[in-house]
């Protein structure tokens, strides 16, 4: 569409077109988000005013008050954060270890196993929902945190990702470590892990986000109120709060807070890392 030389070489007309397109695209992304925020700040009668006001007037914080102090929302959020953090931490460890094995250890059946794992990526979750529930029930872990934490650990995406990160590291690094007297686990722990830090961060963010918004499995596997996670809880507010869109929107806004707090500092970290070329020798 434009010259590939970068913005510096663009003619004013091209530049103007680019800006118009980019602004249009940003609006598509920002407008719905703006309406969620705006809705969360209106009381239920102001929601259906005609003509609608772009900026809520007066600003109404009752939805947030009700959500934070008169609902189970904080508890749901804690459950979600606990599950997502635990899964992310375990995933990063398990997947980097497995990725190291697939990338660097020559064992019989390695390629076959790897292909099988990739194939697992193609099975839609809906197809395994019922068998998975049966297994969880037979193991007696439904209605426990284990039901929320264990199944996501089996997702092979992270192993694939970590393998790709690790496979690019030169073999000589491990060999040097081997001669320096490092054990096999030590090679993984002291040499490989520090060098794939950007990959670990990427994986942690992916897994955390996935668990943060996960809905179907927590809905199916857990019915105990004390274990309800945020997504399930918020969905259940339909009965709890009628069709209070203001309250719903407030929940959506609040749900963004932790993930934003997590993402921004980490984003800086992994962008900086990949630029400094920690993987380069």
């Amino acid at each position, binding site marked *: 569409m434009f010259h590939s030389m970068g913005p510096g070489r663009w003619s004013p007309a091209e530049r103007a077109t680019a800006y118009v397109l980019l602004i249009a695209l940003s609006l598509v992304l920002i407008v719905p988000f703006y309406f969620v925020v705006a809705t969360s700040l209106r009381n239920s009668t102001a929601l259906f005013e005609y003509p609608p006001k772009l900026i809520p007037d007066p600003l109404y914080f009752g939805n947030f008050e009700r959500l934070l102090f008169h609902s189970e929302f904080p508890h749901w959020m804690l459950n979600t954060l606990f599950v997502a953090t635990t899964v992310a931490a375990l995933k990063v460890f398990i997947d980097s270890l497995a990725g190291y094995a697939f990338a660097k250890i020559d064992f019989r059946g390695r390629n076959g196993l790897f292909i099988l794992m990739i194939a697992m990526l193609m099975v839609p979750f809906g197809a395994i929902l019922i068998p998975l529930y049966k297994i969880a029930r037979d193991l007696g872990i439904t209605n426990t945190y284990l039901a929320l934490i264990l199944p996501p650990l089996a997702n092979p995406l992270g192993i694939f990702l970590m393998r790709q990160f690790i496979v690019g590291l*030169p073999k000589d690094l491990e060999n040097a470590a*081997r*001669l320096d007297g490092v054990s096999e686990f030590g090679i993984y722990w002291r040499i490989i892990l520090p060098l794939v830090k950007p990959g670990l961060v990427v994986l942690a963010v992916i897994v955390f986000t996935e668990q943060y918004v996960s809905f179907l499995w927590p809905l199916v596997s857990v019915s105990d109120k004390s274990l309800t996670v945020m997504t399930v809880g918020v969905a259940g507010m339909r009965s709890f709060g009628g069709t209070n869109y203001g309250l719903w929107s407030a929940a959506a806004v609040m749900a963004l807070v932790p993930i934003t707090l997590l993402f921004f500092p980490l984003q800086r970290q992994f962008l900086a890392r990949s630029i400094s070329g920690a993987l380069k020798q």
Partner: protein
Amino acid sequence: MTTTPAPARAALAAVIPYAIELVGVTKRYSTVTALSDISLEIEPAEFVVLLGPSGCGKSTLLKIIAGLEDSTGGEVYINGKLANYLRPKERDVAMVFQNYALYPHMTVETNLGFPLKMRGGKKDVVAREVASVAALLELTDQLKRYPEQLSGGQRQRVALGRAIIRDPVAFLMDEPLSNLDALLRVQMRSELLKLHRRVGKTTIYVTHDQVEAMTMADRIVVLKGGVIQQVGSTHEVYSRPANTFVATFVGSPQMNLFAGRVEGTVGERRFSGAVSLPLDSNWPSLPSDTSVTLGVRPEDIELLPPDTTDAATGTVELVEDVGAEDYVSVAINGQTCIVRTSSHQAAEEGETVGLRFPPDSLHLFDADRMRIERS
């Protein structure tokens, strides 16, 4: 290094073991034989260079000595002890890798101290050793820097330092200079050699660069296709190559080879091929019509006026001025022969010249391309 005669040395080995001894080392991958029956004894403090083209098995051999790969047959002895079943860290050898293999996430200081730390060295001992190795290699100012902040030469020195600090039985170096630019390579080559003289450690050095091999080695081991072609000092390998491979691989420009046969009767024998030359009586009596290859080094050929008696005649195809000397390519009966001459403008392109091959500097190889010795 002076080499003690084999039987005497074998008796001595009980008292002063070879630093490294290889007995019939073989490495086979499913269909390919990477190394076949390699036997070699390396004396303490000796600098041995494994020389060969890429894929000749020299790096594999080094990895087998280090324990990073298993051999499919044969024995490796390090300091007189059978090492086949020892893990790399138990072998007491240190390796310098082609791409340095410095740990990118550690400073120079941590990189240098790492082997000691992993062997349970106390903090103050490690710090002292790091300081002394850094001083030896002039890295003291770089200790707090990361590998990516160092120049190629400095990285190379850190890699060396990491090997030296352990005080191992032997250093194994896998083309350590090949990632450096030409100028730095020459400089590091002499630094490495000086370091070797000072530290006096057994070194096995792998390279495909014959100049590196010839300048550094006490002994050169020429490998091709996983088979040792020749073991000897630079002089031996250069002046008495065991076969045509060694003859052409060692020396630049390479030795001129002419395929041909022996003709004539005893006393009057000649070599006949692209050139025709009398063979003096120092050659063993080869029957007439034997297929042989004649070899002659470019610097041994004399460039003469075209009508000189007993000189071959050829046409100058190319004159390459390399500064101190000229490489003159001469076409003789369809074959190119390179002459190395120190006098400039000895010949011009297109000119007809005479070439004389001094009888003393001729090499003959038999039909199997093995050296025929003069008596």
